[in-house]
């Protein structure tokens, strides 16, 4: 086995080992359990970074997916199931992002355990979620992809249902039932493809011409399943409840990387395996994506709760990502990839900050918040930074995905896509409107009673440590977007060639 293959297995095995270690520690050693889990998360991040080194040099152009490292072993030979993992430019940034956010969340939990305690179990669940998400990004087998897709559900359910806010149980139930509904469709889609093609190998299926009717059916099923996960309007309503009730680390993982399973699946499986279906349905997907941008923005403009507002802003941002994918152009695919990563970084940071504000002020109602810059200038400054990054200011990470989704849409051409580009661009102005409204309400003016009593006003070292990487990344990705996009350029071009509009 090469170093890359070892690293590939390690990105799944290390979190598994960490989860077991953390969960099996007795209750009186809770902190030790959390530290052990965090250590495993740190090693996973190292392993994920190692994936970059010594990859297979891009050689033959035989298949559109050319993983840098891959591992392919029989799993259940009777059923012709294979344990086929690989990583390429499309999945690599997301694998690293997942590893990073999991580490930051575990580290944050070492410092602060939400009610009702038992932090080591929370860390173990976070690591279990990580296995599922990283597995989804690394799977090169449809059935394996589905299995990993499902692994995420129950740990996330537990995180919301145990450590969540007041209405945590209904929110967790809604989350799990809604996304389970999506998973059923995904499973049917997988069956349709496997039954027709006789193979579940994503690498082989990409560019493999399935009959058009099968493709249309399969793409519809895939698109619905991934639309629930992304989420795409109008299948998004599990998200605001889940986010509002989830503990801080749950929200960060949920928004930061869990949603990306949907957009990644849409690109890798929807466009890759069923390109004809994608071409056929792309106008509908594009229209829904732009509807998500506008509707998400408008709801944010009338929103009264801090975490709900950020949750709805995710609906808008993921709308840009889906629009990029729906254009079926290399430009749009690249925009979607950097949009995914930027949203993970920025919205992860926003949820950390929203959690910190809610923990300190004991309320998330915007009307009860105000004058934060007077009592906690550091927190207010970071919130301002994250909001500005999230509204897509050029020079920060959020800009590239949104601006080039618009460019990709214009590149696709024709009246429909031109209109979609114009409306999406107007959505960017809407994003500025609701984020500035948020800042005006929360940071400016004189402190409200809740903010005046805010304690502690200073930021703890652990907070700075867990937010710092996101703050830096939001700027670095804004200045050096090629850090992500040069890795994925070939893969995106190949996928767009399969999608085949231009």
């Amino acid at each position, binding site marked *: 086995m090469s170093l890359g293959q070892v690293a590939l297995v390690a990105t799944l095995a290390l979190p598994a080992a960490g989860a077991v270690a953390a969960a099996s520690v007795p209750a009186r050693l809770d902190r030790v359990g959390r530290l052990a889990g965090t250590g495993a998360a740190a090693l996973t991040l190292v392993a994920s970074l190692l994936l970059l080194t010594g990859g297979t040099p891009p050689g033959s152009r035989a298949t559109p997916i050319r993983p840098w490292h891959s591992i392919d072993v029989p799993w259940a030979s009777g059923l012709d199931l294979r344990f086929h993992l690989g990583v390429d430019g499309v999945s690599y940034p997301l694998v690293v992002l997942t590893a990073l956010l999991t580490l930051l969340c575990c580290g944050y939990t070492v410092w602060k355990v939400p009610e009702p305690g038992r932090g080591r179990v929370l860390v173990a669940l976070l690591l279990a979620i990580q296995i599922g998400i990283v597995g989804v990004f690394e799977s090169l087998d449809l059935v394996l992809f589905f299995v990993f897709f499902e692994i995420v559900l129950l740990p996330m359910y537990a995180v919301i249902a145990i450590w969540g806010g007041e209405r945590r149980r209904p929110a967790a139930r809604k989350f799990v039932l809604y996304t389970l509904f999506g998973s059923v469709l995904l499973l049917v889609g997988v069956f349709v493809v496997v039954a027709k093609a006789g193979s579940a190998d994503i690498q082989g299926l990409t560019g493999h011409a399935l009959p058009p009717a099968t493709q249309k059916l399969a793409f519809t099923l895939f698109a619905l399943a991934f639309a629930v996960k992304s989420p795409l309007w109008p299948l998004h309503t599990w998200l605001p409840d889940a986010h509002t009730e989830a503990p801080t680390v749950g929200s960060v993982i949920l928004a930061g990387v869990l949603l990306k399973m949907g957009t990644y699946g849409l690109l890798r499986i929807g466009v890759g395996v069923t390109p004809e279906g994608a071409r056929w349905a792309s106008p509908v997907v594009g229209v829904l994506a732009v509807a998500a941008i506008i509707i998400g923005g408008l709801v944010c403009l009338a929103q009264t709760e801090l975490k709900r507002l950020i949750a709805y802003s995710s609906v808008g941002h993921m709308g840009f990502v889906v629009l990029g994918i729906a254009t079926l152009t290399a430009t749009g695919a690249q925009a979607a990839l950097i949009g995914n990563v930027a949203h993970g970084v920025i919205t992860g940071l926003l949820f950390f900050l929203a959690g910190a504000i809610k923990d300190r002020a004991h309320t998330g109602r915007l009307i009860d918040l105000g004058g934060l810059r007077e009592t906690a*200038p550091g927190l207010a400054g970071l919130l301002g930074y994250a909001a500005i990054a999230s509204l897509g200011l050029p020079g920060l990470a959020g800009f590239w995905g949104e601006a080039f989704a618009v*460019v990709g849409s*214009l590149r696709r051409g024709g009246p429909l896509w031109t209109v979609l580009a114009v409306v999406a661009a107007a959505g960017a102005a809407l994003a500025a409107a609701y984020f500035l409204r948020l800042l005006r309400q929360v940071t400016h003016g004189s402190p409200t009673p809740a903010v005046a009593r805010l304690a502690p006003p200073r930021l703890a070292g652990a907070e700075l440590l867990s937010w710092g990487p996101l703050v830096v990344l939001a700027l670095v990705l804004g200045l050096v977007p090629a850090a992500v996009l040069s890795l994925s350029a070939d893969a995106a071009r190949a996928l767009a060639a399969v999608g085949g509009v231009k």
Partner: protein
Amino acid sequence: MTTWAALLPTMPFLAALAGLILPRAPRRVAAGLGVGAAAVAFVVSIGLAFAVDGPAESSRRWVDFGDVSVTLGVRFDPTVALVTVAVTTVALAVQIYSVAYLADDDRYGPYAAQVSLFTAAMLLVVVAGDLIELLVGWEVMGICSYLLIGHDRRLPEAPGAAVKAFLVTRVGDVGFLLGIALIGVHLGTFRITEVLASVHRLSPAMLTAVTLLLLAGVAGKSAQFPLHTWLPDAMAGPTPISALIHAATMVAAGVYVVARLFPLFGPAHATREVLAVSAAVTMLIGALAACAQQDIKRVLAWSTVSQLGYMSGALSVGAPPAALFHLLTHAAFKALLFLAAGAVIHAVGTNTMAAMGGLRRGMPVTFWTMTVGLAALVGFPPFAGFWSKDEIISVAWAGSGWAALLVWASAVVTVAVTGWYATRLWLRTFFGAPRGPAAEHPHEPPWLMRGPLIVLAVPSALLGFAGLVSGFAHRLGFGSSVHIEAAGLSVALICLLAGIGGAWFAWQRAPDADPARVLGPARVVLAEGFYLDKVQDTLVVRPVRALARAVRRTDESIVDGAVEATGRGTRSLGAVLSSLHRAALPRAATAVLAAAVLFGLVAALLLGGTR
């Protein structure tokens, strides 16, 4: 050459980064960073202005999106050099002035860093070699204006004004982004040099669409009607920020970008006609609104709107050099006017002219420098504004078509109105008897504030003569040195004297009363800026808010309502079924038997069928 030019935005950017990372740094360090970076940029820009002798460009790939690539580069030529000198001069003056003006502000550190970032963003716009790169500076400038306008915590209107400044410009920027995106899609490049070289590959309709979209962004940034409404409210920012926004950055960016991309705008006649109408309206309503303001800064703010109208008027008749010439002289005298107004406010403790009067004796330096600034503003010969404004009036006169005539007529009338409001400001502030307790014992500001006034008074007085030097005129893009045309000149001068005389006579009759009383019922309309804020509020802000509330309700009650109803329906269906399963023994036995019979029948039929 280009390496040095790249240093221009980089130095202030690094200073800003350091300042923002260390918000608790001692005051001295923050001031050192801000002033130091501006000083370095100033020295470099002066050096480059002397060294530059032709266009120089360097460019490297920034990032690829599929087959569209974005470059990161610097383009430097003699015109760019002059604009960078103006930007760095004003930025340096503002940084130095702010050290004293914000002497007792505990958030001076972030403030100075944001001013540095603002300067860096404007310099990036000026030297950018790529449209996406330009967009970065363009929008960062917007967010800096937002941060700085909202700086003052004592003003309840500041946060609202800050949000308005960013949002109005951002609405224009929707068009700007789309224009740039269309260029990238149709020409395959964002690099400015390549774009300008391949304008002919755009169809006339596409060219019109692209330029109109770009124009939306320009109108937002450069406060052109109907997107000018943010600028007067932006006065809520500290006075040095007003000087920065109104003189050399932000509002200048829009005019500069049109001049820079003029090969695109030149052939787009329809776009230039739209620009001409907007410019004619902007210069006149700006000047008229300035006549009725009570707040000394608001008078200056509206005068900026009006002067920007002159610049875009020059662009609309196809004379970018004249626009840039006025941009430079305006940068000098408007920065001077705002900083002098800041000195007045510093001494009197209020913005309203009703509480001033008679200040010339207590603060002679402020008086004389402000007099120079106002003389330059109205275009009194031989002060700077005279030359540049006269140049615009004469190119508009020489232009052909109704649009040029419209710009000319509006420009000439505006000269008279400008003379009127500037004279009113001058008399109300510095002459007559003091009208407030604070105005009785005014004092000159500290030297850190006085110095920039004196320094800026020099170009305000003399920069116009530079137009006569052919080297300077060539650098701006003029064919020959600026010439004076007797016929046009006399019309403008007569208008100017009429305006000044009108204000003087109105004041003479009752030196304690406001000359604006002669406006009669029009006074309220002008003071409210023709109620355009209200129009904007009724037509845009409120409908969007109402729509947002309606969409939120729909999303919660219908979209989510359907989901919740499905859940509830499933549960009640389950409840019904489970209650059926809790039947008593006789009914359960009947049901089992019935089912057995049913299955038996089905099996018999099916098996019978296959046999």
